[in-house]
Structures are given as C-alpha cells and as structure tokens.
C-alpha cells in the first residue's frame, strides 16, 4: 500500500482479524488500558522508569503482532521539529555543564529532559499502536461509541477510514496521469500551481463522490449511525487483565513518586 495506512483499512463488519495474543480481550478494555498506560507514562518520574515503559510498550506491540518494519517507521515518525527541540534542550535549560561548543553551554539537565521527552512520546505511541492500532477501524468506532463518544463523531470516523483508500487511489491515478505528461515536481511556481490544480480537482471529485454516497446510503435507510451487528461481551479474563494492569500501573507510578 503506497500510502501506508493499510492497518487503518476498513474491515467491513467482520470482527475476525489477527490481533495476536491481545485479540482475545474486549476492545473496550484495550482502549481504556491504552489511556491508563499513557497516563502512567506521563506521570512517572525518572528516565529509567520511562525507559521501562518503552520496553513494556514494545512488548505489547510484539504481542499484538504489529509488523516490525511498520513499527520502526512509526517510532521514527517524530517530526523534524520535535527532534530539533530535543537537540536544542541541553542549550536552553540551565544546569551543570555537559560540554561547551564555541561559547555555547550544554547542560546535563537539558539532555535528560530531552531524553525524557523522547522516551515518553515513544512509550505512549507504542501503547496506542499495540492496544488501539491493532483494532480494525470499524471495531474502534464501535468501541468509542460504547464508551460514550457521540455517534455522529463515530460515524464520521468510520466514513473517513472507509474513504481513505478510495481517495488515495484517486490521487494516485491523477498523479500518474501528471507523470505521463512528463510533470516533474520542483521548487517553482509551476509545481505549486499544478499541485494546486491537482488538489482542486481532487476536492471536486470528492464532493461529487460524496453526493453519490449520500444518495446510496439514504436509499438504504442510513440515519446518521451505523448498526451494531456484534455487541461486545465482557469476559472474566477482561476483569482479571484490567485489575492486574491497574494495580501494576498504579504501583509503578506511586513507587516513582516516593
């Protein structure tokens, strides 16, 4: 998948999908645990414990069978300016000297603060991808709805996921036809105008498509929400996992604050 969002692909209403060892648990449990895990990561103090949470997050990703290449690509997805910030922090935070470059004073405090930010961000993202990213998008929608997220917002989420691949395919077709006419992107006004035209055409086609979609959906009695065909069933093992995870997370957070 050229656009790389295949894990977000629409899986219809079928609940069967290989989610590794985590697949057996109730999606509601996974979503709430992802939030609790993220909260624990943010609250915990000290680089060692944050690093421990990164290891936990990575293990969860392995257990959820997130493909390794995808996982690494996503961890590396910290955007340029976040990385830049971590590099700059030693110079902007006062503290004991780490080294000095041409009169600039780098501090240990800043270095550790930067490392903490990187560890926090990585652990949260790993937890999110393992526990929530392993859910098919329609299950994610159903989970959010059953946890009280407004139904229209959930329907919007499911429609967006549904049309990602369709719109992506349309974009690739238009981009290919530009390439067939020998268009080469560069840093110039011609490129910006041409890509602008591409965007404008994409928008018009999307609006036309949405009109057909609306008609077809109303034909089938769509009233703003998706029917739920497979209600979730909370099992004893979900209660067990929830209790164990909450005790462990609370324990680690309390211990770090002592």
């Amino acid at each position, binding site marked *: 998948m050229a656009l790389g969002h295949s894990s977000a692909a629409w899986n219809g209403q079928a609940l069967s999908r290989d989610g590794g060892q985590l697949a057996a648990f109730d999606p509601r449990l996974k979503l709430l645990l992802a939030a609790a895990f993220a909260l624990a990561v943010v609250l915990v103090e000290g680089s060692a414990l944050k690093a421990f949470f990164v290891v936990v997050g990575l293990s969860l990703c392995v257990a959820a069978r997130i493909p390794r290449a995808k996982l690494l690509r996503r961890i590396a997805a910290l955007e340029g*300016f976040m990385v830049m*910030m971590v590099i700059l922090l030693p110079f902007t935070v006062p503290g004991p000297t780490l080294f000095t470059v041409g009169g600039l004073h780098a501090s240990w405090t800043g270095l550790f603060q930067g490392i903490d*930010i990187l560890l926090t961000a990585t652990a949260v*993202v790993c937890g*999110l991808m393992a526990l929530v990213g392993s859910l098919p998008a329609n299950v994610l929608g159903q989970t959010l709805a059953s946890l009280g997220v407004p139904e229209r917002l959930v329907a919007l989420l499911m429609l*967006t996921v549904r*049309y990602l691949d369709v719109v992506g395919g349309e974009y690739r077709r238009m981009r290919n036809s530009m390439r067939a006419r020998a268009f080469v992107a560069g840093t110039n006004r011609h490129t*910006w105008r041409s890509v*602008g035209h591409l965007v*404008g055409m994409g928008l018009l086609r999307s609006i036309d498509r949405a009109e057909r979609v609306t008609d077809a959906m109303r034909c089938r009695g769509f009233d703003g929400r998706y029917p739920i065909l497979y209600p979730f069933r909370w099992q004893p093992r979900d209660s067990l996992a929830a209790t164990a995870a909450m005790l462990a997370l609370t324990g680690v957070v309390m211990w770090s604050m002592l």
Partner: protein
Amino acid sequence: MHVVDGVLSAPVLLAGAGATLAGTAVGLRALDHRNLPVTGVLSATFFVASLIHVPIGPSSVHLVLSGLLGLLLGWLAFPAVLVAAALQAVFFGYGGLFVLGVNVANVALPAVLLAAALRPWIWREGPVGTACAFTLGAGSVLATSLLVALSLALSGEAFWLPAKLTVVSHLPVALIEGFLCVGALALVRRVRPGFLAEVWQP
C-alpha cells in the same frame, strides 16, 4: 506540526482540550445524516493530501490544506480534523494522546476563523480573489505555526528557542500553501463556475 506527549504543561493541554471540545461541539451540532458522508469523504481527502509531499530545495514538505478545509466545511472542520488527528496518532504514531486537543485546536481554529473572515471576497474574480486565496492558504499555516509556538512557549522558558524556530521553519511552507490554495481555487472556479460560491452547502 504535531506536538508529542511529554512536552506541554498541564494548563496548555487543558486549554487545547477545552478549545477542541467546544469547536467539535459546535461542529457536531451542524452534522446530520445528510452532510455526514461529504464531511467524511472530505476529511479523508485532507488526510490523503497531508501525505502529499512537495519538494523544497533538497528537502520536502507535506501539504496541510487546513485553510481549504475551513473554507469548505466551516465549523465541521473541527470534527474532521479531530478524526484525522486521532487516526494519525493511533495508526501512524504522529502526535500523542493527551496532546490531541492542542494539536487539533492549533490546526482547526485558525482555519475556521480565517475562512469565515475571507469568505465574502474569496470568490471574486481578479486580484482580490487571488489575494484572499493566498491569504487563506498561507495565513492558516502561519497562524497554526504561531499557535504551536505559543503552546511551546507557555510550557516553559526552555522551549522559547524551539518555538521561534518552529515559526521560522514554517514560513516557506506557508508560502507554498498560499500558491497551492490559489491554484486549487482557480481550478474550481474554472471547472465549476459558481459552484462553491453559490451552490455548495456542507
């Protein structure tokens, strides 16, 4: 322009979450079963657009197009950006969980407000319309980078330098977005005259 978890201070996170909640509530009130599909398809379109890269010298930048989103969807842009940002965080690892509110507000708020301010003049023929289109594209990216810088700066003195660099590094992006917006709206005007100005209702 996604901020990750572990950087911003609690008051900034709360303010961002509050702004996003309010904006989404306004947007959801306008969302019904008739305009749900078009909002979803447009939200997907902008998601795909954010994966398009335009070269800039030896490097490249990805499109944001938040200005166009605000122009087409109005307050519906808030739920659309929220959905896109949540999907990006969960499936791509961009951003985080607690910063979601800040990230959404930083992108959606300037887009919605700027589009509302420029809407009366943007469909005019000639230089006025072109200037408005450029302002919409460039201005919303610039305002977003300013809000990102503000979120960073309010979170601690150590982030002042990164905050300034964020704004400077987004100046070329804003310029490109401005030209793109002019191109996109010029095409829409030529292919479907009067459609977005008169017929279109999100």
